[in-house]
């Protein structure tokens, strides 16, 4: 049993919404002069409410929760970027926080200069950077551009260099927030491996926030689930992730508009309902790659004279790549309520986050209405009989057979 390295007690953070005061000296001054009180009944929010936890040395802990649940605020307090309103955090050892890659990079300086600058900002000494320099350069793969100003780097190179510096930090506690959302899949993979190595081999404590559930599941030994600033659960990452996804997915799976006048659309098309209905295999309750998804759509239609209609369904990955664009046949509809839909089969999409946009096209050419990002959902991973735990690449993971066999059967048995 190793010892506690971070201990948070009753951590709370209060934010006033909007500026404190007016942000202008003249106004604050004249308000004060006239005896007007500023503030008082301003809107406020508890970004964190009474959060307490202990983290053991060498543990890798993941934080799960929606945007605004308080994950980033929590990491910011532990990183000493902002102060708690109440409560305290105590700990031992140096902390390096990586809330964003490339913090402090200066465009006019060369890659070499920036390795040192960024390393120092993250708390490394010159000697530490020197001892890791070659490893950093090798990891980032930018050695030919070391003496080029980083503003001429491609965004991929920039991120690789920035992460390389961070990955070679040598603090006792590493705090990582969502940095894996950048870079290509291969590099992300490399980063994950590196982080695993850092925590397992060097025994460092890692606090980790990501929306990449696969990464969380693979890396973390323990997870904390935050909701509206409160720590609602902690424990096994797999369990918590499932809980989170289930809670989360309900939110975006349908949009229903009862009032035709305020529904999204225009004179020709008004949306009544868009809905994603998962067809779970027996016993399932989380959308994973085995789940078929039915998209349903109802709308009020007021056809422009003598025209036909095509409804197209566009599926995008969360990064904005279009995965498919399928369309209904040309149909002439009467005015009134209409419905449509499609079925995304099971074992088709890969795990990941997706969103759907629906387009209404008139006479095959003019766009009547584009209902952008009207549905969004997350597909969880599901694997059986495989020893590969990394992110499965690609947007689709269709269930085709790949055959493999001896060409000349029977010759050597």
């Amino acid at each position: 049993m190793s010892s506690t390295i971070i201990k948070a007690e009753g951590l709370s953070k209060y934010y006033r919404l909007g500026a404190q005061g007016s942000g202008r000296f003249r106004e604050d001054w004249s308000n004060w002069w006239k005896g007007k009180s500023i503030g008082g009944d301003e809107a406020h929010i508890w970004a964190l409410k009474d959060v307490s936890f202990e983290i053991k040395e060498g543990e890798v802990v993941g934080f799960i929760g929606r945007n605004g649940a308080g994950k980033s605020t929590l990491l910011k307090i532990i990183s000493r970027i902002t102060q708690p309103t109440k409560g305290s955090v105590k700990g031992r050892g140096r902390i390096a926080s990586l809330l964003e890659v490339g913090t402090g990079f200066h465009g006019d300086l060369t890659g070499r200069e920036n390795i040192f600058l960024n390393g120092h900002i993250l708390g490394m000494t010159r000697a530490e950077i020197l001892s890791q320099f070659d490893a950093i350069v090798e990891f980032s793969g930018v050695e030919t551009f070391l003496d080029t100003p980083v503003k001429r780097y491609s965004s991929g190179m920039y991120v690789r260099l920035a992460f390389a510096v961070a990955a070679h930090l040598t603090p006792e506690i590493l705090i990582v927030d969502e940095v894996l959302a950048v870079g290509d899949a291969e590099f992300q993979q490399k980063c994950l491996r590196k982080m695993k190595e850092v925590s397992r081999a060097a025994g460092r404590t890692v606090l980790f926030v990501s929306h990449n559930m696969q990464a969380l599941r693979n890396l973390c030994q323990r997870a904390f689930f935050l909701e509206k600033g409160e720590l609602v659960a902690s424990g096994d990452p797999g369990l918590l992730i499932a809980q989170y996804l289930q809670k989360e997915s309900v939110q975006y799976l349908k949009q229903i508009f009862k009032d035709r006048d305020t529904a999204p659309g225009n004179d020709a098309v008004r949306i009544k309902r868009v809905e994603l209905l998962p067809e779970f295999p027996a016993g399932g309750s989380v959308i994973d790659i085995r789940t078929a998804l039915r998209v349903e759509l109802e709308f009020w239609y007021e056809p422009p004279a003598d025209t036909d209609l095509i409804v197209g369904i566009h599926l995008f990955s969360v990064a904005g790549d279009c995965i498919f664009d399928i369309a209904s046949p040309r149909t002439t509809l009467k005015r009134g309520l209409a419905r449509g839909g499609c079925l995304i089969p099971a074992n088709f999409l890969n795990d990941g986050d997706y969103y759907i946009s629906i387009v209404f096209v008139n006479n095959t050419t003019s766009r009547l209405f584009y209902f952008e990002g009207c549905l969004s959902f997350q597909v969880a991973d599901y694997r059986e009989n495989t020893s590969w735990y990394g992110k499965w690449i690609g947007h689709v993971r269709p269930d085709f057979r790949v055959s493999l066999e001896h060409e000349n059967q029977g010759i050597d048995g």
Partner: protein
Amino acid sequence: MKETDEWEWEIDPGRPWFRWELGSIVRYRDLLFRLVRRDLLANYKQTVLGAFWILLQPIMTTLVYWLIFSNIVKVPIGDVPPLLFYLSGIICWNFFSDCLNGSMYTFLTNAAIFNKVYFPRLIVPFSSMLAHSIRLSVQLVLLFLVYFLFYIGGKVSAPGVSWLLLPPILLLTGLFGLGAGLIISVLTAKYRDLDYTLQFVLRIWMFASPVFYPAGLVKGSWKWVFWLNPLAPLIELFRSACFGIGEISFPYLIICIVTILSTLILGIALFKRHELKLTDII
């Protein structure tokens, strides 16, 4: 392993006025020097004239002052060669205003970094002052070069021991700029509309300091107000140490030093007290 109650650090809502954590600056000294380097490199890499700009600015200003105040308006400055007189005033004033400008926008210009990573925030204004000190020393070399030329020409006497006073005078000048800049940095983070006012005040301040005229010209019953400006005794003392001209009143010098030290202490205390709170509003 046993549970330990010996924590190395603690983060809490409290912020006493005098927890300055100056030790952490020593721990982060590599960052300090790296920022100085960045400051100098990034500033001059992209300009056509490069590092030569450090010298060009005081030279041009001196020539302009010489043209206007020696030849057109004719401000009496005593026996010192005008070029030396203006150059010394400009160097002192520039160092002060550079140190002030280098620290007064600390929170605004570094909001992005301050929001993402922890390091002792005081490093930023300190590094800016250090970078300006390097610029200052280059400019001092220029001053001494010009002085040497006048010495060969027989216009000024050989440097005396009084030159040893120059480093402490300049240190006080820089610290005053830094201290005032730290106080203002907290204000500019809160009030964006202070910017124009400040630049205006800074310009007036220069006219109120003996940059292009000797303090001896200031007469009348309001003279003491002029001397309360810590830069007045400093610039006069600089010229006195350099060229042996001007009069220094000892009481005003004491007031000047006390003002500077209290400004600096107030500046650091205010900065430390607000550094984390300001992250939430910028």
